[in-house]
């Protein structure tokens, strides 16, 4: 496998090219387009996590929206509190009949706590959830179905606890984050750079992780879970750790997305958006980190371009594209190259 990729002289330059484009973008794009690109890059961070668990771990998660949402809601809680005059509670709590802040909201007024929560909460939830399933050796299709039920249950729960979550409306109307006004153009481009930096760090870190013994064992567990077990390794922790890392990336992506979009809501985290996240990676290439980023960008751009002009067409297109890619192009766009090289 490694020899084949070395055959291709251009491959090492692809991430660099993407990086170069990412560096040039702020000087070439309007504020609106830059914001759009930044959102899609935040989704790209989540997509990287799917490469880790789905491509290399064989773990199909149809519930990444849950972790995306956990990160998004964590930062949203902070921004809601930051803009609040002292002694008041967010408006949606008032019209939902609440008169005090729930206790678990209060620590989110601290930026440090918020950042820690964005990193830790999705990771911990991902670890506990996946451990509960994997340690009983339930996996594969069963796991995918359970994650889908998780996405449904989580979004339903957020909606039904309107008094503390903002319900169906989600959380929006933010003015500042960590002391920077969101309306100022400087903040917009600053957040873009942060997103680009996080994306790069995640990319490099995952690249290292996938090349390490951890990555080898993850692939080994994907291809022969029992073989790995009979070599004396317990596959569960590798799968759980991978899942937790993917959950963390989804959470970070969700938090950054919320900053760029100015809203987090159940519409982003339910069953359908969670599957669409898999679509990005399927199209970009489930085994390729760079491919996943490209997939997240392309699918979202295509939706942006197509769905307003041809709303019906979009759904047919997405369905057909998905069937096509999964059946005939399982390595996605990134695999167009590999297969011919082989």
């Amino acid at each position, binding site marked *: 496998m*490694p020899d084949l990729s070395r055959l291709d002289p251009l491959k090492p330059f692809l991430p660099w090219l993407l990086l170069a484009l990412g560096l040039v973008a702020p000087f070439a794009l309007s504020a609106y387009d830059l914001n759009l690109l930044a959102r899609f890059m935040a989704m790209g961070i989540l997509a990287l996590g799917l490469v880790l668990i789905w491509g290399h771990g064989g773990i199909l998660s149809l519930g990444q929206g849950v972790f995306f949402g956990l990160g998004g809601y964590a930062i949203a809680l902070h921004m809601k509190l930051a803009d609040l005059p002292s002694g008041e509670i967010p408006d949606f709590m008032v019209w939902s009949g609440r008169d005090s802040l729930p206790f678990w909201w209060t620590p989110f007024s601290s930026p440090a706590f918020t950042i820690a929560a964005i990193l830790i909460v999705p990771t911990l939830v991902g670890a506990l959830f996946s451990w509960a399933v994997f340690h009983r050796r339930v996996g594969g299709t069963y796991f995918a179905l359970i994650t889908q039920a998780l996405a449904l249950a989580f979004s339903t729960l957020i909606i039904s606890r309107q008094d503390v979550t903002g319900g169906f409306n989600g959380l929006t109307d933010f003015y500042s984050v960590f002391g920077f006004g969101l309306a100022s153009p400087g903040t917009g481009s600053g957040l873009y750079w942060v997103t680009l930096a996080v994306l790069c760090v995640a990319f490099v870190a995952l690249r290292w992780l996938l090349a390490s013994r951890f990555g*080898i064992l993850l692939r080994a567990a994907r291809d*022969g879970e*029992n073989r*790995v077990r*009979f070599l004396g*390794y317990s596959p569960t922790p590798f799968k759980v750790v991978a899942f937790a890392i993917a959950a963390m990336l989804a959470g970070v992506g969700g938090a950054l997305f919320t900053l760029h979009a100015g809203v987090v809501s159940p519409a982003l985290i339910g069953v359908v958006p969670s599957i669409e996240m898999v679509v990005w990676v399927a199209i970009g290439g489930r085994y390729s980190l760079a491919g996943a980023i490209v997939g997240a960008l392309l699918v979202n751009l295509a939706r942006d371009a197509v769905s307003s002009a041809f709303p019906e067409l979009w759904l047919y297109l997405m369905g057909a594209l998905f069937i096509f890619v999964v059946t005939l192009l399982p390595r996605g766009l990134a695999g167009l190259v590999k297969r011919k090289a082989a």
Partner: protein
Amino acid sequence: MSGSAISDLLLSVDGVTIDYSGFKALDNFSMTLNRGETRVVIGPNGAGKSTLCDTIIGRVRPSQGRVLFKGEEIQRLPEQQIVARGICRKFQAPGVLLTLSVRDNLALAARKDRRWWKSFGTGIPADEKLAVEEALESVGLTHRAAVEAGTLAHGEKQWLEIAMVMATGAELLLLDEPTAGMGPAETSRTAQLILGLGDSRTVLVIDHDMSFVEQLAAPVTVMHQGKFLKQGSIAEVRADAEVAAVYLGHTA
């Protein structure tokens, strides 16, 4: 390696019954293995040979009976802990990791520290590296070390798996049909490989191929319908009327 009979005893399967929804694959079966011994288990299809391996390695759990390894019960331990205690198995259908390189397959097998939090790195300790190279050498796969295991020929996969089992450094090796799909030359090479393991390893071999069993020149245990039938040298077993009846009855 001298000592009393008790310290020589490595494995003891004690009255084990395996029940597949009414069908008894093992029926109150017992046997023992001493340190350094090589033992061959034969028997017609469905005699319970593979199930015996499954039981020892923890893939199936006995409804009755015990499996003792170095005097401790292991029949309830998770598979990876059984392996950690020093048992490793080669499966009937080659169980190599198809998308990893041959070398990576062996490196995983040779690794001593299998805890997950020690897996965040690429470095391989010198002794493990050596073990990998030796294993490659012994099965003649050195020149194929970098290729994906999935691209190996069937016989090569068998050898790779044998090499993996050896590289784990396990004291007890369970080899389930190591020569399946091999030609005569490859078969005798496999026999040489097993004989070359010497006294330091205890080996349990399951095979149909009588020429292979003869080359091993090891004591033979015959199973039938999940039960112990006979034990002795290959010649003794061949001469046994009961064994012949079982095989004849089977073929008839």
